């Protein structure tokens, strides 16, 4: 498979008075024209891995890596100005906090139109029409009203879908989607996944799909990285996720509530200190 992105030995560090906290510790993987899932418990470093690729770690955080290559060019050697051209144009990211990523004092419509015209030479009227279409594509039922509305007037799931619509405008080579469907009901979720799937299959986009929903990732992705305490503890084919070996992954799978097997209490993870000692498993192919 052709490699779009090649990440080698990625670290994200947060220095503080108490010492340095390593949020990501030596993660390596490659991404081709595929759907790569990243799962793992809260705080395991999934979002920081995604953000580090775009060099979007807030100060005092530090990103270090042997390299983060996009089509063979190391992003770590780029200037901040060059990075701005990468962000949004070549690699888009749907943030975990959709409403924070939208401008609260601008209508949804003007934000989508602005983003669209930044990437396409189009008249205002064309951009408006196009924006309506994009909202319809993510299953927004009343796109005219949504165009006039402000971010705080949107439901949780609507905010997520608006962000996805906007991130797809520049036709990126890589989309990093951080919990993009966590607020969506199952039927809308399906539709949003289908859109992303199409882009991977038809346009050859590479997708990094960050999620804590193991069933969803097993069903939707091609490969999965399983993260624990800043490291990758296991890599597997998505459809083999249910046969995963690592006790941590097994623990995650067993803690899911099941409609067909009611229980009074859910299993919780019994953490083993050893899990965080073992070096990161490589997700390169």
């Amino acid at each position, binding site marked *: 498979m052709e490699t779009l992105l090649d990440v080698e030995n990625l670290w994200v560090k*947060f220095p503080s008075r108490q010492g340095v906290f390593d949020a990501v510790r030596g993660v390596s993987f490659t991404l081709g024209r595929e759907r790569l899932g990243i*799962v*793992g*418990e*809260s*705080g*395991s470093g999934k*979002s920081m891995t995604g953000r580090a690729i775009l060099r979007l770690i*807030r100060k005092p955080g530090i990103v270090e890596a042997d390299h983060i290559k996009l089509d063979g060019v190391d992003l770590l050697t780029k200037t901040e100005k060059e990075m701005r051209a990468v962000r949004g144009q070549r690699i888009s990211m749907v943030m*975990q*906090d959709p*409403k*924070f990523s939208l401008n609260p004092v601008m209508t949804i419509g003007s934000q989508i139109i602005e983003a669209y015209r930044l990437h396409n030479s189009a008249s205002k009227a064309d951009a408006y029409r196009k924006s309506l279409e994009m909202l319809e594509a993510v299953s927004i*039922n009343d796109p005219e*009203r949504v165009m*006039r509305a402000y971010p705080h*007037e949107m*439901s*949780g*799931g*609507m905010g997520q*879908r608006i962000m996805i619509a906007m991130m797809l405008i520049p036709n990126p080579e890589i989309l990093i989607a951080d*919990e993009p469907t*966590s*607020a*969506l*009901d*199952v*039927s*809308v*979720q*399906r539709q949003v996944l289908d859109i992303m799937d199409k882009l991977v299959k038809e346009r050859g986009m590479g997708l990094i799909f960050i999620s*804590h*929903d*193991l069933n969803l990732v097993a069903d939707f992705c091609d490969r999965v990285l399983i993260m624990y305490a800043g490291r990758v503890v296991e890599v597997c084919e998505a459809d083999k996720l249910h046969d995963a070996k690592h006790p941590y992954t097994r*623990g*995650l*799978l067993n*803690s*899911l*509530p*099941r*409609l*067909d097997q*009611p*229980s*009074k*209490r*859910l*299993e*919780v*993870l019994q953490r083993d200190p050893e899990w965080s000692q073992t070096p990161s498993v490589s997700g390169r192919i």
Partner: protein
Amino acid sequence: MSMLNVKNLNVWFGKRQQRVDAVRDATFEVARGESFGLVGESGSGKSTILRAITGLAPNWSGQLSIDGNPVPQKRPKAFYKQVQMVFQDPYASLHPRHSVDQVLGETLQLHGFRDIDNRVVKLLDDVGLGQKFRFRYPHQLSGGQRQRVAIARALAPEPELLLLDEPTSALDVSVQAEILNLLTDLRADRNLTYLMVSHDLSVVGHMCDRLAVMKSGEVVDILSVAALRSMEASHPYTRQLFEASL
């Protein structure tokens, strides 16, 4: 006596042509000690119902009562000792410049507690965070860690009715299991009543006794969790929802 009674509730935003009828004629009851689920389409008005109950959606008509007492348009402080809400969006619901300690300490103070220090420590333990998070700020927390702070804040006044808006949708499955177990224990220990929004039917199946299904602002179906488990639905939208989740 029901803990929460919602009768012919309408909630709307905006005026005239801009008016959005987010909830129309919703009616349901939640018994004391019961756990009641709200499921349905994204944008169907689930969060809006919770917001109307807590006074965050000012335009509403119909009847709302808590423990037999009608809810007035302006909520007195005592109301929030009885009713607390955990918001869907853990990012927006915490003040960015307040540390975890401040968030919990101020809530406790507001509700007249004395032994604040001990209670902050206890609350952090209860939600599985522990002491090392006490002086952190929201931007130093992951999504799941923020949601645990939000739950700790809601538990602080020791409410009787908890309104939970997707309390675990931002959490990974192991923390979800911890939080759901915690909510189960709290309900048993303190005889709490839950009204819980979730798009995850297995979470609702695990946590709730009954559930209402919403679509386009209306409650279209009310059913038991037994019916959910056996996927028996008479309403076409409920059936569609069940089928999509298989």
